[in-house]
C-alpha cells in the first residue's frame, strides 16, 4: 500500500513540470502567458465545480463564515497560486524545465524552513538545525551544478 502511495506521489509530482510545459506552449499559441494562466485556471475551475458536486453533493457553504475568518484565507491561496503558476510559465522557456523545478523547490524549502522556524500560520515551531543547514547547502550546490552544465 505504501509503495502504491509512493508511486502515486511520484506521478503527481510529474504533473507539475508537464503542466508548466503545456501552459508555456499554450502561452505561445494564444500570444500571452497571462491568458494561458487564465485559460488553465478557468478549465480547472469548471472541472472543480463538477468534482465538488460529486464529492460534497452541494456547492454551498455557510455565508456567515466570511465574517468569522480573516479575509486573506479566501483570496490568499488563489492570488499566490496564480503568481506561482504564471512565474513558472514565464521562467520555463528561459531556464529550461529542470532548472525551473530545482530553483522553485529551493525557494519552497527555504520558505518552509522560515515558516517552521517562526511558527507562522499557526504551524508548530520547528527550529533550524545543522542537518537542515547542510540540506540547504547541498541543494544550493545542486542548483549550481544544474545551472552550470
Amino acid at each position, binding site marked *: 500500500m505504501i509503495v502504491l502511495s509512493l508511486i502515486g506521489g511520484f506521478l503527481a509530482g510529474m504533473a507539475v513540470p508537464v503542466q508548466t510545459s503545456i501552459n508555456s506552449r499554450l502561452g505561445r499559441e494564444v500570444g500571452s502567458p497571462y491568458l494561458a494562466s487564465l485559460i488553465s485556471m478557468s478549465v480547472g475551475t469548471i472541472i472543480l465545480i463538477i468534482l465538488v458536486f460529486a464529492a460534497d453533493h452541494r456547492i454551498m457553504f455557510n455565508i456567515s463564515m466570511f465574517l468569522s475568518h480573516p479575509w486573506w484565507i479566501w483570496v490568499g491561496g*488563489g492570488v499566490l497560486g496564480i503568481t506561482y503558476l504564471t512565474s513558472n510559465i514565464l521562467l520555463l522557456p528561459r531556464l529550461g524545465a529542470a532548472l525551473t523545478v530545482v530553483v522553485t523547490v529551493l525557494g519552497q524549502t527555504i520558505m518552509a524552513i522560515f515558516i517552521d522556524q517562526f511558527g507562522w500560520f499557526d504551524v508548530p515551531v520547528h527550529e533550524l538545525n545543522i542537518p537542515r543547514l547542510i540540506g540547504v547547502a547541498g541543494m544550493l550546490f545542486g542548483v549550481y551544478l544544474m545551472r552550470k552544465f
Partner: protein
Amino acid sequence: MKKKESFYAILFLLWGLAAGMVSPVQTAINAKLRVAVGSPVMATLISFFVGSLVLVPVTLIMNRKLTFELQVIRKSPWWLWIGGVLGIIFVISNILLLPALGSELTVVAIICGQMVIAMLIDHFGWFGVARHKINWQRIAGLVLLIAGVILIQRF
C-alpha cells in the same frame, strides 16, 4: 554581452526562488481555508475561482485584450488545454497522499517525480521546450537536491 546574459540568468533564478517561496504560504493558507469550508475540494475550487477572477484584469493590463485567434483551437494539439486538469490532479493527490505517507515521504516522492520528468522534458525537448541533454553533472545536481530535501524533512 556575456556579462549581460549572466545578469539576466541570475535575475531569472532569483525570480524562480521567489516564486517557489510563495508556494508553502499558499499551502498554509489553503489548509486554513479547507478547515473553514470543511471540504478540501471546495477549498481548491475557491482558490482556482479567485485565481481566475484576478487573472482577468491582469491579462487586460498586460495585453489589452482577453481574446485569442480561434483557429488556435483547431490547429493545436488537444493536450494544450489540459494544464488546469494536471494542476487539480496535483492538488487532490497531495490531499489524499498526506495521511497515507506523512509529510516527509509525500514531499520527497513529489519532488522526485518533478525532477525526473523535468530532466526528461529538457533531454527530449518535449512540449516544444529547448533541448538540454542529461549529463552526469546534472544527475549529481539532482541527487544533491533530493538528498537536501530528505535531510531537511527528516531533521
